[in-house]
């Protein structure tokens, strides 16, 4: 009796099945679904970020290697920043155990201004103070507010265009997704 399939054809079929089985894994390793207003960056090394908070405690981005870092530039006079800030506070609460480092950089304002603002709007977030605005300048954000996501190797991976509702499920899932990789 003739075989149903010739041997080389069976091998090709088996290879195809193996490829199809590997496809979901390949897709999940690829780019996560990007929520609205999030764009991928090409992975340049993040600029230096060495600043102190209002208590004088220093922060250096290079010390955060090994973790994803949410780097956010803002000022209290900026309308979209004021709108976005509570969503960052809420996102931070939801992802507190995730290992995501949240770095809030205030651009060129005084301790008094920032203290009064944060105390009301986002009391659990501790901003870094870029008193003269020069660190912000080196990052060249597209405007205020701006958020970069820096990967565990210290590379710029994603940029949020303008203010985003960070506590909405699609943004939370996106953040969880990248942290998990």
């Amino acid at each position: 009796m003739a075989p149903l399939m010739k041997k080389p054809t069976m091998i090709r079929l088996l290879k195809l099945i193996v490829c199809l089985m590997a496809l979901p894994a390949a897709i999940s390793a690829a780019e996560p679904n990007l929520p609205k207003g999030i764009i991928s960056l090409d992975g340049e090394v993040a600029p230096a970020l060495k600043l102190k908070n209002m208590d004088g405690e220093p922060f250096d981005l290079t010390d955060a290697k090994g973790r994803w870092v949410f780097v956010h530039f803002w000022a209290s006079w900026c309308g979209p920043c004021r709108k976005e800030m509570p969503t960052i506070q809420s996102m931070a609460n939801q992802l507190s155990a995730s290992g995501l480092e949240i770095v809030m950089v205030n651009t060129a304002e005084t301790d008094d201004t920032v203290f009064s603002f944060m105390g009301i709007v986002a009391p659990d977030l501790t901003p870094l103070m870029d008193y003269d605005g020069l660190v912000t300048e080196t990052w060249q954000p597209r405007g205020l507010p701006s958020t970069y996501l820096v990967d565990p190797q210290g590379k710029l991976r994603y940029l949020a265009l303008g203010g985003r509702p960070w506590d909405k499920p699609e943004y939370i899932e996106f953040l969880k997704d990248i942290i998990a990789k």
Partner: protein
Amino acid sequence: MKIKIPKLIFPIAAVFASVGFVVAAMAADDVQSQQPNQPAKPAADEKSKTVEYENAMIKMMVIPRTREQMKAFYEGRGFSQQAIATIAEACFMTVVIKNKTDKILWLELDNWQFHSGAAEVERLDRAFWMQRWEKLHVPVANRSTFGWTLLPERRDLRAEEGVGGNITMKFSEQAFNLTAKFLRGEDKQTSPLTVQLNNLQCIK
């Protein structure tokens, strides 16, 4: 079917001109540009002098600011009296733009013309202000804040991206027009979009 945009634009523009607002959108090869121009709100609010425009590709709003508004804003940010006096001499307008397309829209203020009749209205650019602040020894923090409140000189506005900020001109009692040309597409090769806003007025 291809529609020659200028034939559509001119009668519509004439109607808008009668209420102080003209918009021309020219992008003959773009299907979206074939939509009639639709201003989002009444042409020009006599009280605020705000001028708005919206079509399928762009939303744009120009809001003239009073001297008192600008003085109060920068006083609140700790600017010196000398710096405030310089600010009060200029004409400030807040511009808000949203790219409604899926292509890059290039905001390049060098491609914007401010004119009153045949005369050009001088825009005070970032370099002008930086020179002023240098001369007045304005602190770096204040320069930074002022810079972030200005509309960027150049920006590749991504799909659905918005931008806002102030443009500044020499103060003039005379109304003037703005012809804002936006190149389009990553390589700037898509036919440009031109928005014309008439009867902009500095307010005291």
